[in-house]
């Protein structure tokens, strides 16, 4: 019953596999089964072609050029900003182009002014990229870093928020979807709750793992800051977005600066641009903006809701199958998991499992997934993580489960 259901939904996506040229590669004589999508996804042909198109037709430096190529490149660049605004249901003057999630978080951390005694709160699920920048702020400015601990189901203990949030809390930051566990945090409700406790708190939402899997409506979620990387969402490397809510933009004093950010420069004083350009010093990753626009169009054509449905069913199917194996300890359980599943083979190191699976052409990630505090909480060195994308299939999961069983036999 359930199975047929999964099959049905997943089947609809099978033709899309043809859009991803890399999938036809062989790994050690096996078809590639790529379950490392939370690390980076592959790119559809339309995105790869867009890059080629960019360099064979449009390449030119944006913004100040009067010649045709430059004017066109500028239009394309700003069209991309508008595409992001549409994709995220927000305004283009809130879309700042970055080189990725990590860059976006650092930019926020460094561009906010801090004073001793300010508090930053984050959860025990965060990725290093959403921990280390705040640790540095703590160490340099005497800011307090407070951790919202996880409960036994490995979800943040939201009910502790009233205790942990004070009038000194300046920023609350949390991951939208955990890259290790795959659980989706109820961002909209949490943000409302946080604001009800202290209306001045700035909220940063780390969307690195949510953007690839479901529709993001920033107008509805209302974070102050939202960050993600396009390489994890079928787009090119080196490109990401930092959304800054219009009314929070004035809180930031851009930490990096340079060409393109100014109205006027004299030795004494510089008058800066308003809006996104203020945060985008230097020549942008123009190819990245163009190709990302095509990636968004690709996703919109399929429909983020359908992608969510697909990815969710795949994830649930994987969870169901893994749960049937008693040699396996599963860390990703629950209705709110989408995209990534973490587990270990009891008594075995995740590295061993990963190496053996690779010999069957199956690419999983093993290790701490840049969430060492979470690993510490779990008391383990790492996990095996299988993470899914729109081109993955139910039969790939079946194959993976079958080979996982073989690996377990080899290791015992």
């Amino acid at each position, binding site marked *: 019953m359930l199975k047929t259901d999964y099959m049905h939904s997943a089947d609809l996506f099978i033709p899309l596999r043809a859009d991803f040229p890399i999938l036809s590669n062989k790994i050690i004589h096996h078809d590639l089964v790529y379950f490392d999508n939370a690390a980076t996804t592959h790119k559809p042909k339309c995105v790869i072609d867009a890059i080629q198109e960019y360099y064979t037709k449009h390449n030119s430096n944006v913004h100040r050029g*009067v010649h045709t190529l*430059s*004017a*066109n490149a500028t239009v394309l660049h700003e069209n991309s900003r508008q595409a992001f605004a549409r994709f995220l249901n927000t305004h283009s003057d809130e879309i700042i182009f970055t080189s990725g999630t990590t860059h976006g978080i650092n930019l926020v951390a460094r561009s906010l002014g801090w004073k001793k005694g300010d508090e930053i709160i984050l959860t025990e699920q965060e990725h290093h990229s959403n921990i280390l920048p705040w640790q540095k702020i703590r160490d340099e400015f005497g800011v307090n870093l407070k951790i919202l601990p996880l409960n036994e189901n490995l979800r943040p203990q939201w009910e502790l928020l009233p205790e942990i949030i004070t009038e000194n809390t300046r920023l609350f930051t949390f991951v939208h979807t955990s890259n290790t566990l795959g659980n989706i945090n109820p961002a909209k409700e949490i943000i409302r709750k946080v604001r009800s406790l202290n209306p001045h708190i700035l909220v940063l939402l780390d969307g690195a793992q949510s953007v690839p899997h479901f529709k993001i409506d920033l107008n509805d979620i209302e974070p102050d800051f939202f960050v993600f990387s396009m390489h994890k969402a079928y787009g090119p490397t080196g490109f990401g977005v930092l959304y800054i809510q219009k009314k929070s933009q004035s809180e930031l004093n851009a930490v990096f600066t340079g060409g393109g950010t100014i109205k006027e420069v004299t030795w004494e004083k510089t008058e800066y641009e308003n809006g996104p350009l203020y945060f985008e010093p230097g020549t942008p990753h123009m190819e990245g903006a163009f190709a990302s626009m095509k990636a968004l169009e690709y996703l919109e054509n399929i429909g983020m809701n359908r992608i969510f449905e697909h990815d969710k069913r795949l994830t649930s199917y994987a969870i169901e199958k893994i749960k049937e194996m008693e040699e396996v300890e599963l860390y990703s359980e629950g209705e709110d998991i989408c995209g990534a599943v973490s587990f270990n083979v009891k008594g075995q190191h995740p590295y061993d499992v990963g190496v053996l699976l690779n010999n069957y052409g199956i690419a999983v990630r093993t290790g701490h997934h840049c969430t060492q505090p979470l690993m510490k909480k779990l008391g383990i060195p790492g996990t095996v993580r299988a993470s899914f994308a729109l081109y993955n299939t139910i039969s790939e999961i079946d194959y993976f489960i079958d080979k996982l069983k073989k690996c377990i036999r080899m290791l015992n």
Partner: protein
Amino acid sequence: MAASLSEREKALEEEFSLFGDDWELKYEHIIDKGKKLPPMSEAEKKEHWLVKGCQSRVWLIPGRNGNCFNFRADSDAIITKGIVAIILELLNNLTADEILKFDGKIFERIGLMQHLSPTRANGLVSMINTIKNYVQPKS
């Protein structure tokens, strides 16, 4: 009564249609329009009247005439000045309602710009926005 915006745009299109595809003639015509636009005095070219976001400098001084608006403008680049001259031709002595309808697309139709790019180089979009900002009823 003054001609409406659409009548003026139509007249301008006809004026430029004479040049066909010959961009040199078109630009000579624009340069000519620029030269004919009365210059502002240096005293008038105040920082305050500068339109932000053009590569060349554009000064734009708003004025009123009853319900209608009357702008004066100048630029240190002659082609920009010619474009400004056209904008004034199109918008001066119109009401706010009419002016707010102006979308600048006429410059594409007469073949002067491939598209109204948001680039800061040609400050067309900035000029139009500045004008609209002046005439917009303040709440």
